[in-house]
């Protein structure tokens, strides 16, 4: 930690040289940098490593800007921008002084320059119109808004998008630094899309932030690179090559954007004597000030972690010293600098290779004709992948830092798809503090679950030729040593997997499980045949309903298994299972599919979920995370404990209602009622989503049912302006079959009324925050060729569906109409029939 603080000083030097204008008032230097990740005005940030508060030493933003591609000038290029910025910054300074007071004051008089209603909690709708009149309000109001606590990331994005004022844009660009990383990350697609497709000023405002974050995080770097690639793909090929999006992507992938410390070292080969030595030892002149022990320590923190890639993992072998010696413990400085000289982007490489392998598997699977072959190939490919794990790789869809240690390959399944080969894998990870700096877990061989005696206990064997002679003579002949080598047979299972016994059954069957070890009492033990038979049928009855294995639908069984059960089962069978930070994740790998629309849908769903939560409307939806890797590949976070309604119906051969009763009990049980309520709340939520986003292709294969009774819509391939094959089916507002209504208790039931009421409340709440939703979609519209933006009226139509002009009574009527219409709609039924005929989906 101490290092980072000290390292900043060269950057400061740089600052003094390069930008005398900003630093001329050195007293205000900390204040002039509201965007500084380490200075005062960002009370919200928590993750920055350098937390030296309020000291003028901290000047990374300039550093950052200058390092980008040396485009510092662009940011403060125009005089206007400069002035505006300084004005704003001045304000910020004052604001800082009296902190919360001013932000409290600013609330009632908030106005903005553009047609955007700002967000305030529980603000009456009518205020919106009033405020819209004040289009031409003064800069100062704007500044007060920006300074206020209410100015959140959503507003920042909105102003960035709508404001034509370079000064404002530049300010917001700087302001981005003050938001929490997670908040900005949500809008990353928007930011990058603006960067790619909008004018220079916006791009210049955004870039420093992106570059800064890229330096901080490998994950962010890769996300950016992937998104930049994906969203640039709609440009014409000739412009694409030279577009700034592509350039930035290249910059990121070239791994130029290392953490600033390394950067500095390279740019300033001769640091002033006062400058403490940098992490690297390649500079001879700084060597003397370092004690050797400190050096190695530092190296292990920085270089080693950076350079440990998949490749070095592969060399680890306990038994093949010839290979091992090449990668000796003390990572020699020569090999390290070699990597730097060669310009090998080792920092991002492991993860990129990992993703590449996963995509490669998907591509190869697509060539195989049958599901069975695909599954077998998938398993074998994954088992090969396992050889390269653990490594500094992770699943970007997870919510915590971790390293992937193993892919339980036999659990992977191929998903149902006609011509592509999406597949679902489970991934074992070890949670860690920080995947960039925490050391990669040591590999444990597959078979180690059971072994007690192994390499660790025989460490000397075959290390060096000299040791050989001595080592083997001390090791006893293995065959006379049977116990030691055979600890782990079936006989030991009881010791190793105690759960089997404690978990499983009643006491009676315990009796029959343990072999009768009644040596001391020679009394014969008798047992009734009827008991054995009864236990057999009871045990089979007690196991939760499982789906039957179907080679044509291998995913059904895997998805039906309760998640907790699966986690427990996999944990038992893995050599890493005993570690306390072991976690199981799952991910769907999609190859050949464009997930950009899915990502858009995710964002909208997430936004609506937040809105409904904020407005306390108990609608239930489940946005699942999407990772766009390119315009035709990506990953999806699977919804756990859920199977498609198609699979439910096919496997159970029951109506939905009967299936509910089978799974949750009879009508008046609490379980059933809870499940029913969940069903209604989710149904209402998704009906609204389907209506607002015009989600099409709603057959039962695209609607999941989870173990608590929620439905979850998946596959947002047809939204907004696109619909499958433009057949004009599915004209109803959303899908509401009579089966769904049956589960809700029929048309006259209370639950059905509840459903309609939820719809109305949800729509009102969504309408209130319409801008937040629209903005997500609208920004992504920029430069996009996605089918969902087909035509010119996508955004207008979307806005119209919020029915801003209707009174609540009118809205209620509208909802009634939609519900009735959808229910009577024969097109839903027709579409299901069509799907059944063409795709065999029930």
């Amino acid at each position, binding site marked *: 930690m101490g290092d980072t603080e000290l390292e900043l000083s060269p950057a400061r030097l740089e600052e003094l040289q390069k930008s005398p204008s900003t630093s001329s008032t050195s007293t205000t230097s900390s204040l002039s940098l509201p965007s500084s990740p380490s200075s005062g005005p960002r009370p919200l940030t928590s993750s920055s490593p350098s937390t030296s508060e309020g000291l003028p030493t901290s000047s990374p933003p300039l550093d950052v800007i200058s390092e980008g591609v040396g485009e510092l000038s662009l940011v403060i290029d125009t005089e206007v921008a400069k002035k505006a910025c300084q004005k704003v910054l001045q304000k910020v300074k004052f604001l800082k002084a009296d902190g919360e007071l001013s932000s409290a004051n600013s609330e009632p008089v908030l106005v903005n320059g553009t047609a955007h209603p700002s967000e305030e909690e529980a603000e009456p709708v009518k205020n919106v119109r009033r405020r819209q009149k004040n289009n031409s309000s003064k800069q100062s109001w704007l500044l007060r808004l920006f300074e206020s606590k209410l100015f959140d990331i959503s507003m920042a994005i909105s102003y960035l998008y709508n404001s034509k004022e370079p000064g404002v844009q530049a300010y917001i660009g700087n302001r981005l630094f003050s938001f929490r990383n997670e908040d900005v990350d949500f809008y990353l697609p928007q930011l990058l899309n603006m960067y790619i497709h909008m004018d220079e000023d916006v791009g210049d405002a955004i870039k420093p932030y992106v570059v800064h974050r890229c330096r901080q995080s490998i994950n962010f770097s890769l996300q950016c690179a992937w998104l930049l690639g994906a969203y640039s793909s709609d440009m014409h090929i000739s412009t694409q090559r030279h577009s700034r999006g592509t350039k930035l992507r290249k910059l990121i992938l070239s791994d130029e954007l290392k953490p600033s410390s390394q950067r500095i070292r390279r740019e300033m080969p001769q640091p002033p004597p006062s400058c403490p030595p940098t992490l690297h030892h390649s500079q001879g002149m700084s060597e003397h000030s370092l004690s050797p022990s400190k050096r190695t320590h530092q190296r292990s923190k920085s270089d080693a972690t950076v350079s440990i890639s998949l490749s070095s993992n592969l060399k680890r072998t306990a038994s093949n010293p010839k290979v091992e010696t090449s990668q000796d413990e003390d990572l020699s400085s020569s090999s390290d600098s070699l990597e730097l000289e060669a310009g090998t982007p080792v920092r991002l490489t492991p993860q990129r290779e990992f993703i590449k392998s996963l995509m490669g598997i998907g591509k190869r699977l697509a060539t195989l004709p049958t599901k069975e072959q695909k599954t077998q190939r998938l398993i074998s490919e994954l088992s090969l992948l396992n050889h390269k794990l653990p490594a500094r790789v992770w699943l970007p869809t997870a919510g915590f830092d971790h390293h992937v240690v193993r892919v339980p390959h036999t659990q992977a399944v191929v998903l149902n798809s006609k011509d592509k080969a999406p597949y679902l894998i489970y991934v074992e990870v070890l949670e860690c503090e920080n995947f960039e700096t925490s050391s990669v877990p040591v590999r444990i061989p597959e078979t180690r679950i059971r072994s007690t005696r192994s390499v660790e206990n025989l460490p000397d064997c075959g290390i060096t030729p000299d040791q050989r002679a001595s080592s*083997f003579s001390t090791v006893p002949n293995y065959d006379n040593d049977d116990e030691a080598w055979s600890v782990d047979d079936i006989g030991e299972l009881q010791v190793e997997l105690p759960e089997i016994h404690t978990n499983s059954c009643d006491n009676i069957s315990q009796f029959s499980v343990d072999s009768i*070890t009644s040596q001391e009492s020679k009394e014969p033990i008798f047992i009734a*045949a009827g008991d054995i038979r009864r236990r057999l049928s009871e045990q089979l009855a007690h196991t939760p309903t499982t789906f039957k294995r179907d080679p044509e639908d291998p995913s059904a069984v895997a998805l039906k298994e309760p998640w907790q059960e699966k986690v427990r089962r996999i944990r038992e069978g893995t050599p890493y299972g005993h570690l306390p930070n072991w976690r199981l994740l799952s991910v769907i790998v999609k190859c050949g599919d464009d997930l950009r629309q899915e990502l858009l849908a995710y964002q909208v769903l997430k936004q609506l979920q937040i809105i409904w939560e904020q407005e306390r409307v108990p609608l239930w939806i489940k946005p699942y995370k999407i990772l766009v890797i390119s315009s035709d590949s990506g990953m999806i976070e699977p919804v756990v404990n859920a199977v498609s309604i198609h699979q439910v119906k096919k496997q159970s051969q029951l109506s939905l209602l009967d299936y509910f009763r089978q799974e949750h009990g009879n009508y008046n049980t609490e379980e059933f009622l809870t499940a029913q309520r969940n069903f209604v709340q989710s149904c209402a939520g998704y009906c609204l989503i389907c209506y607002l986003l015009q989600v099409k292709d709603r057959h039962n294969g695209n609607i999941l049912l989870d173990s608590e009774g929620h439905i979850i819509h998946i596959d947002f391939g047809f939204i907004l302006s696109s619909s499958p094959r433009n057949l004009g089916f599915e004209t109803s507002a959303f899908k509401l079959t009579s089966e769904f209504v049956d589960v809700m208790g029929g048309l006259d039931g209370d639950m059905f009324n509840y459903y309609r009421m939820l719809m109305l409340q949800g729509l009102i709440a969504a309408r209130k925050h319409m801008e937040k939703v629209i903005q997500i979609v609208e920004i992504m519209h920029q430069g996009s060729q996605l089918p969902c933006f087909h035509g010119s009226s996508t955004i207008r139509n979307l806005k119209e569906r919020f029915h801003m002009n209707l009174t609540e009574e009118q809205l209620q009527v509208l909802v009634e109409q939609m519900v009735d219409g959808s229910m009577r709609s024969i097109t839903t039924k027709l579409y299901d029939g069509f799907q059944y005929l063409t795709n065999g989906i029930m």
Partner: protein
Amino acid sequence: MAQTEKKAGLLRRTSSSKKPLKEKVLLMYEDIFTKEDPTKSNPRFWDELFLMKVNLEHLEGKLEALDGDEVVKIRDNINSLFHHCVQALAEEHQIKVVNALQTLCALFRGVHQKNKSATGFDIINMLMGFDKAELRMKELMESLDSLLCGDGSESLKSLCLKLLLCLVTVTDNISQNTILEYVMINSIFEAILQILSDVSSRARHGYDAVVLLALLVNYRKYESVNPYIVKLSIVDDEPTLDGMGRVIHHALAEYNRQYKEKEEENQGGFFSTLTSMVGSMFIADADEKLSVQTNEAILLALYEAVHLNRNFITVLAQSHPEIDIATAPAVPIPASPTTPLGTTPPSLDMMNNPELPLDPNLQTSNLLITFLKYSSIVMQDTKDEHRLNSARLCLIILTCIAEDQYADAFLHDDNMNFRVNLHRMPMRHRKKAVDKSIPSRPLVCAVLDLMVEFIVTHMMKEFPMDLYVRCVQIIHKLICYQKKCRVRIHYTWRELWSALINLLKFLLSNETSLLSKHNIFQLALQVVNLFNMFITYGDTFLPTPSSYDELYYEIIRMHQVFDNLYCMVLRVSANAGPWKEPASKVTQALVNARAIINHFNPKIESYATVNHISQLSEDQVLEVVRTNYDTLTLKLQDGLDQFERYSEQPREAGFFKELVRSISLNVRKNVSLSTMSQDVLLKEFSSIS
């Protein structure tokens, strides 16, 4: 005998046309075989010698022709020759290296043939001299090691391995080969591993390397500590183990492929019109030709890997697509190009490697599946000694696998389903199963199928008792695992039950002839106890309640077998004699089967009389069974789920000694041939350099 064979191989195959003209190299050899130091007359003698093309047979013949006194006289020269050979290995000039390797080969062979009776120490003294032996061998092994691990020519590596194989197999009994003591001290284990871990070198030299390793592991296995055993047991590097697995997989698959080809050939022709009986005889004949003897060496390697190295178990399940039949598998795979990033770690190539070709018609396979198929072929006919040994080894390997928890876990993994086409012996009373109809199932089903297949096809006069015992033990171990872990596989247990009952029946009807050679009560006890497992613990691993009913049905249906067995063991145990004890154990074990029969038979009879049915249908019997469970009491037997773990020593030691001896003979024979063909390579080689 082996001696003459070998001689023939060496002598006849070379160009005899050169005889009249005396090559220079022969003159030089003569110089060596004098008492004089050859460098006296020619100071550059050794330099020149290794530039000459080696005349192996001549040199060997010379060595052989020596008698005791002469040996002593020219010992210095031979020591010198050996010394210079070793030195030449370090030469840059590769022709010299090649010649030195071949000369060494001839030296080892020649000296051993001459001194068949001599002790190993004499041989060492003659070759290297006692005082220098340790140093020389150290130098030799180090040179070989660096040649094998270096980036040098592939033919050189191949020759190194041949030399080593030659050295390892010069004696019939590997443990009497004293020179190997130095190979133990100066391990080349790491070099072998490196060959196996690298894709391209594995393709070229993998087979030799694996055979060499298998043989080295068997050097004085039971008497001393063999470092190769220790090292092999702790290897945990996946690419290496996987490489080893692939070499074995490839060799076994190749055998399977050849067999299948031959089989199809035979079936297509005239013989297809004959009865299946004749056909089967013919196939048996065809197999004789097919049975490539060296596959025992590969099987031994598989055994050692499975038995010694617990990490190797994972390799068994490591799937890769079956090697394409059309492409010649011997073609070495070129090292895959590095990825654009250039950062590909050495074995990342496995991911985008031609070894996983994109042929949609390929069925994914793994070593275990290939091994099961191979076993099914080998077990078909156990009359031939080699095949009997192979079958025995197959069953031993399966025993080891069945005992391993990890192996059991993937055998029973519900997500790993495969179609395994086992070979079934054509028999009169059954049709050959159509290959396509086999469903995709967990691998344990294939193992059980193989066991059932063996049980029903080997009830013959030359009863392979020990194979049967192993077979039943394997089933027992698998069931123990299922019981412990409560795994319920959907297997048609009925086939197994009826096979086991038929086995009992066979034992009964051939009691007298079998008893003269075997302890049939041990096998009978195992079989009866398997039934006890099903009867008393069936609730823990049977797939459905009705399968438990079926078990009872099967026992009741075949009650006569149990009745007769009971009578027999009762009779034998009543008489004093060697079988009294084992027979009385069977008597006790039969308690439950008899209880079931005695309980249900009257019920079934009364059901028949009440309902006026003469012959009850299966469903009716099952109905009776279901309704009458509650009044039946069973006795829990002790230690049903306990088994004796496999241990090689002392029980199997004799078998393995003999096996290694026969493998040694085989390898020696084949090495000599291939050493000769090496000449071709060398010619090419000399033209390059």
